[in-house]
């Protein structure tokens, strides 16, 4: 395999104070991959994600995006990297005082010099892609949790990032909304060639989306492979993880 990885996580160690959350994590993600991180609640999935998008700096080790260290990047090049990534936070994190259209338009307004009408058109299109064309003027508090997640995905896609990070995109959603989100991911990966990093513990969606899975436990990667491989593997936790509900 001589493809060039788009994300490299090297010997990553993460701590909150004295508590070690991740110890010595290593993996590569290649362009167009759908990469999934699974593991029990509180095992450090969000923490791993926050290191990959540069919100937290590693205690040791490094995270490279397109060959550049995200935590040690000079301030003037930071924006170039940040424009390559879009993030769906676990809590959605839409701005409560802005309606959906304004939420999606915000990164475009702030980070591009596009004219106002172009920005609005782009924002409308993104919301249409996630099926929210009837809700442009709604505030986040006025729509359901599933819709908020979808709107947040639309916002994450605003600048056409190369990599989308999704933190538990389907948790707390009904089966129909969550399978719609799965379909959206499959479509976006297929049509636009976006690389996905998805944190999830929704077995149905993991199996539907496919891709490569790592299982975190006790701060380490304990199993790695395609969902069906893990399900039939000898690793007890991986088996249990992928076999609930079926």
């Amino acid at each position, binding site marked *: 395999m001589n493809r060039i990885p788009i994300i490299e996580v090297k010997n990553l160690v993460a701590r909150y104070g004295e508590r070690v959350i991740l110890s010595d994590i290593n993996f590569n993600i290649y362009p167009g991959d759908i990469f999934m991180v699974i593991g029990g609640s509180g095992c450090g999935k969000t923490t791993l994600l*926050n290191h990959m998008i540069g*919100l937290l700096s590693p205690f040791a080790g490094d995270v490279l995006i397109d060959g550049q260290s995200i935590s040690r990047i000079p301030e003037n090049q930071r924006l170039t990297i940040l424009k390559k990534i879009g993030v769906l*936070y676990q*809590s959605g*994190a839409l*701005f409560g005082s802005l309606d959906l259209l304004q939420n999606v338009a915000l990164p475009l307004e*702030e980070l591009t010099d596009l004219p106002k009408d172009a920005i609005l058109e782009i924002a409308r299109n993104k919301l249409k892609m996630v099926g929210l064309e009837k809700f442009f003027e709604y505030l986040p508090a006025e729509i359901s949790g599933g819709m908020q997640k979808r709107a947040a995905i639309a916002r994450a896609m605003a600048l056409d990032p190369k990599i989308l990070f999704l933190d538990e995109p389907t948790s707390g959603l009904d089966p129909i909304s969550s399978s719609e989100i799965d379909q959206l991911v499959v479509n976006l990966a297929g049509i636009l060639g976006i690389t996905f990093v998805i944190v999830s513990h929704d077995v149905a969606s993991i199996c539907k989306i496919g891709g490569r899975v790592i299982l975190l436990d006790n701060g380490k990667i304990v199993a790695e492979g395609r969902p069906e491989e893990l399900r039939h593997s000898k690793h007890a936790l991986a088996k249990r993880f992928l076999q609930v509900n079926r």
Partner: protein
Amino acid sequence: MDIRVERPAPDTLKVTFLGNLDIENVTKIWRLCVDAVDRESPRLLHLDFSKVDYCDGSGLALIKVLQQKQAKNHKSCTIFGLKPTFQKLLEYIEQRPDKVETSALLQEGLPEKLGHITVDILRDLKENVVFLGILSYQLFLSLLNPTKIRWSDFFRIAEDTGPQALPIIALIGFLIGLISTFQAAPSFADFGAQIYMVNLVGLGLVREMGPLLTSVLLAGRTASAFAAEIGTMKINQEIDALQTMGLNPVRFLVVPRILVAMLVTPILEVFFVIFGLLGCLVVMITLGYTTDVFFHQLYQSIEPIDYIGGLIKVFAFGLVIAGVGCLHGIKTRFGAKAIGQSTTQAVVSSLIMLVVVDGIFALIYYVLGV
């Protein structure tokens, strides 16, 4: 519900439960059982549940507590006649040992404590200084390029902070003017100097009471609101979202709020003073003075410099209130109690800062002879 306590053999205690072990019954017998075991500390404790049809969480808790007491004294405890369902529940609880937090048990000595406190204080200080630096820089950038300011946010926040605060400002101002004049009246009457109450209240309001009390009210109202708003955004990961979009949270959230406070606080202070003087006027009129006399006296006693001095002060107070409020919002940490802590901290710190800044102004004005 009753229990029967027997001593079938020396050093053996038999407790028979006669009825269901639900919350109500357990409440009645808990002390009784625990005290009996504590008092006698029998070699063998025999618990008989054959008359018990039902046992809930409180019943299980009672059993566990009695078992633990015996185990601690190296005595034994047997259970008889507990229905299989409840037996299973009990075993299920026992399979999961209580988690012992070893780190919490570590006792810190005085030197460690002192060290930790010092580090915390220094870190806090550093955070504040860094915040102040970023804030000044972003404020400066925004003023250089006003199109970059989020004006829609500015107006939304201005409405919450200004007009909405007006009723309370007016009410308190009026009452302060009214009450202080009224309280001063008898003493001034002794000297036949009641007209000078206008000087007292007028000057007091313009120079000190107006700026300080307006700011105190805003510390309770606005600093806490800013801290809560920004803290909620932090918990909700909205601040993370801003950062990964490459947008500076300080420019985005703090600058509009600071600008609002600097604009709105002086305006509210003007209203405070006007309503305070109105309160004073009401008392003066009831004492038989005319409005003409009142305004003449007021005009004579207050110099423009007094007024300007007050306004400059309140402008600085506004900056302090908004800055401290936003700072505590941004510093909101992780967890459920975090927002409550940061709002409380925002009010307390901004009040302290107000007093400090007021003191500095008093010194400066004294030196300048204002």
